[in-house]
């Protein structure tokens, strides 16, 4: 029996310890927060490459002749339209349209999909998928404990992955596509996806081969400037890229359209949450915006956003952007205060910091 009060260790825990990592409890897992400097790790991903252990993510295998039809019903996106070898960002909603989790779905084999959910939502997503699978010819397998997820992110990531694994389709693998590669005689899922705003790859490997793969990637990456990177840099990277984090920008009380994710929802089919989506948000529902400020003082999650004396919103994530050098934040604000260019104030622990509404993302890599 696992003691539920003890954080779980990644299969790569000993590697992280040997690298001098500091750890943080994240969704019940003890994961590396940084190895040396989170700023150095952040910059390495923007300019060279970083390697992340994100084994805490939940992987659920969906198999069967009804797999596509089932996922069309269970998720907000039109999964049946995802060609073999492609990935899709999607949402799983509750009946009223609130967001249960955001997910990546990989169509990696015929009649098979791999659904990747947030660590903190593993149990609720598995249960919701099981509940919604009644009447469909599908099998669900929670592979979270069997798979290690290693992300290699940054402009040098392709060269590093190519040098480490045999990936026959590497040259033609597009962003948000997936294929198979071979490492130590194991066939592993190689996906060109990530959560950093850079080009990058996510590799789904067995526990047995996780450490050899990590070490091989680290060795191949060293000449390219690859560094191990922790969750602190992962958070500032995704924030710059305008990517939402469940529990901050997304939650059960948020409709996709409020989070700017209306495009993820496909209304041409029936799915759990459709009626809530069609009813739409309340007239006074807040919407997600980007805020930028001058100086160095960043608004943080929970800080009020003000327009004159009126509180018109609240920050969900914020930091001094390592790449841009000025404070950035995502915030939910009243729709009347959401137009780009709107001048607002952030209440930073009792003092006002001027902020401008901007379109997301804050940072976009050059194509």
């Amino acid at each position, binding site marked *: 029996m696992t003691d539920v009060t003890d954080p779980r260790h990644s299969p790569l825990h000993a590697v992280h310890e040997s690298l001098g990592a500091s750890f943080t409890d994240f969704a019940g897992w003890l994961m590396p*927060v940084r190895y040396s400097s989170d700023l150095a790790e*952040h910059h390495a991903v923007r300019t060279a490459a970083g390697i992340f252990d994100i084994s805490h993510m939940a992987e659920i295998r969906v198999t069967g002749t009804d797999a596509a039809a089932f996922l069309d019903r269970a998720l907000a996106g039109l999964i049946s339209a995802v060609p073999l070898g492609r990935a899709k960002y999607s949402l799983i909603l509750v009946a009223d349209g609130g967001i249960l989790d955001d997910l990546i779905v990989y169509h990696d084999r015929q009649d098979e999909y791999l659904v990747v959910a947030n660590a903190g939502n593993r149990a609720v997503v598995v249960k919701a998928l099981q509940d919604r699978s009644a009447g469909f010819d599908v099998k669900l397998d929670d592979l979270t404990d069997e798979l290690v997820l290693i992300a290699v992110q940054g402009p040098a990531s392709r060269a590093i992955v190519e040098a480490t694994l045999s990936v026959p389709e590497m040259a033609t693998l597009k962003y948000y596509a997936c294929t198979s590669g071979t490492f130590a005689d194991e066939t592993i899922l190689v996906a060109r996806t990530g959560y950093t705003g850079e080009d990058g790859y996510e590799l789904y490997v067995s526990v047995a081969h996780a450490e050899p793969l990590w070490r091989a990637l680290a060795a191949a990456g060293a000449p390219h400037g690859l560094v191990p990177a922790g969750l*602190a840099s992962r958070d500032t990277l995704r924030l710059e890229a305008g990517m939402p984090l469940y529990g901050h920008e997304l939650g059960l009380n948020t409709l996709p359209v409020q989070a700017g994710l209306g495009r993820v929802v496909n209304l041409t089919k029936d799915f759990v949450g459709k009626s809530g989506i069609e009813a739409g948000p309340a007239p006074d529902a807040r919407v997600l915006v980007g805020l930028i400020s001058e100086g160095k*003082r*960043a608004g943080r999650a929970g800080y009020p956003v003000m327009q004159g004396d009126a509180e018109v919103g609240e920050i969900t994530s914020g930091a001094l952007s*390592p790449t841009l050098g000025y404070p950035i934040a995502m915030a939910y604000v009243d729709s009347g205060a959401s137009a780009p260019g709107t001048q607002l104030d952030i209440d930073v622990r009792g003092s006002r910091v001027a902020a401008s509404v901007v379109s997301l993302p804050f940072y976009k890599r050059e194509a």
Partner: protein
Amino acid sequence: MATKEQLQYTSEHEWVLIEGSTATVGITAYAAEKLGDIVYIDLPKVGSTVAEGTVVGEIESTKSVGELFAPINGTVIEANDAAASSPELVNSDPFGEGWLIKVEFTELPSLLSFDEYTALTGA
């Protein structure tokens, strides 16, 4: 420069160097490590009066915000402008170049010894 053993400490992870009636204050390596890369420091103005246990400044990292508590009653006679303009000094040399403020005091509060502080952080 004093050794870590010669410094005194607070439970808020600050160190204090007493020289005559002047206390030099900084945050410990433990605190700097917990915060991560420090990107912004707000220090009290020179000449301001500070009261023991009150928040007198802020230390922000990319991930979080730490508060600077006055460990002692007194008057700020110097603030480390170098650390304010280059906050990374607090990460690279928390007990030296990364000192934060100097306070002139009249009465010594009770502070933790190195051994007591080390016991607190479990280091």
